[in-house]
């Protein structure tokens, strides 16, 4: 067992566990976005940043950092709250989020984070990029305007379904998730149509066709349910 402290609370954790997992067991809330139980951690969004006091205050993503003996972790502080809100605002300006007309309005992890982190407005200038929508799939659609590039779809498809349909194209803010090698999703030779990517997606980017504003409710916990019955990826 490894001993560490999180927000001054003494916590015991298994070797190899992440700071996030240890915090969860101790009942300490750390907000996350790209993390999903059942999938490998990616450290893509940085919302879960924590400060390790005895590493000179270094910031690390708690979802992707294993616990170490004697660590003094700060999981909640005004500084972290401000950093998390800033990261969140950068996510919001990167794409076009019109909650009022989004399938996921009221059931969205990004929207929930905005409330949790007290984001009453976004302080950066919006980019308003022109982005496509792909409705070629029989059952599902993808709206790149709502995508936060968390990669949960990519990992769900590769690690749980084993189809490896999704991947990233481009770099930085120009990154897009794409089916196969940029084909329309409906033309994909690998997609089995299982819908795991849709359920894993935290936002309104992936949705079931026929769902109107506010109607898309996701079940990301099915990823954990499915993987619990087999060795983890």
């Amino acid at each position, binding site marked *: 067992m490894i001993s560490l402290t999180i927000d001054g609370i003494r916590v015991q954790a298994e070797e190899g566990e992440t700071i996030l997992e240890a915090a969860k067991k101790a009942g300490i809330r750390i907000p996350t976005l790209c993390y999903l139980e059942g999938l490998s951690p990616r450290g893509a969004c940085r919302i879960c940043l924590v400060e390790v006091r005895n590493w000179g205050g270094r910031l690390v993503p708690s979802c992707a950092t294993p616990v170490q003996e004697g660590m003094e972790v700060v999981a909640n502080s005004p500084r972290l709250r401000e950093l998390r809100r800033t990261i969140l605002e950068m996510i919001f300006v990167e794409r076009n989020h019109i909650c*009022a007309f989004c399938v996921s309005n009221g059931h969205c992890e990004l929207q929930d984070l905005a*409330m949790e982190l007290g984001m*009453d407005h976004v302080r950066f200038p919006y980019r308003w990029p022109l*982005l496509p929508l792909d409705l070629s799939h029989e059952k599902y659609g993808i709206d790149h305007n709502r995508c936060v590039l968390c990669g949960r779809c990519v990992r769900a498809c590769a690690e749980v379904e084993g189809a490896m349909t999704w991947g990233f194209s481009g770099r930085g803010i120009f990154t897009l998730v794409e089916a196969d090698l940029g084909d329309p999703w409906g033309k994909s030779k690998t997609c089995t149509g299982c819908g795991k990517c849709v359920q894993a997606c935290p936002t309104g980017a992936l949705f079931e066709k026929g769902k109107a504003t506010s109607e898309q409710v996701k079940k990301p916990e099915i990823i954990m349910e499915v993987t619990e019955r087999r060795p983890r990826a």
Partner: protein
Amino acid sequence: MPKLRVATVWFSGCSGCHMSFLDLDERLLEFAERAELAFSPIADVKEFPEDVDVVLIEGAVGNTEHLRELLEIRKKAKILVALGDCAVTGNVPSMRNPLPREEVLRAVYAKDDPPGLEEGEVPKLLPQALPLHAVVRVDFFLPGCPPPADRIWKFLRPLLFGEQPQLSGPDLKFG
């Protein structure tokens, strides 16, 4: 105690925020005891008055008229509030922002010489619909599309009693 002078303004929005304000129902009586409506689309006042304590602005800054008025209102009002998502984020009016202004006007109104392309009877459309804080300092943000009446009241009531409103959690929900 003199009554608080409150104004409401309607820019590029659907008027839903004003409808929500009217949804205050019987609370409007309590509002009227402590405040007076100095300027509003629902009051018969032509010029934005000089001495406004609080102005609630619905809608994004969509055209040159909004821009001019907003700059003037900022000078005249002590507390400026962005009321609703269009004022806070650009929201629905900003859905045109990824596209060129000319293209949008031509597609929606008329192929040649659509209104709003140049300054005329209809004010010129700005290249992009902007949230208020992209143009002026905003003192408070009241998100929601529209913000529910309860949320508006939670915000306004403290102001009427000279206190600082403080919205958090579910009261900050966009959409």
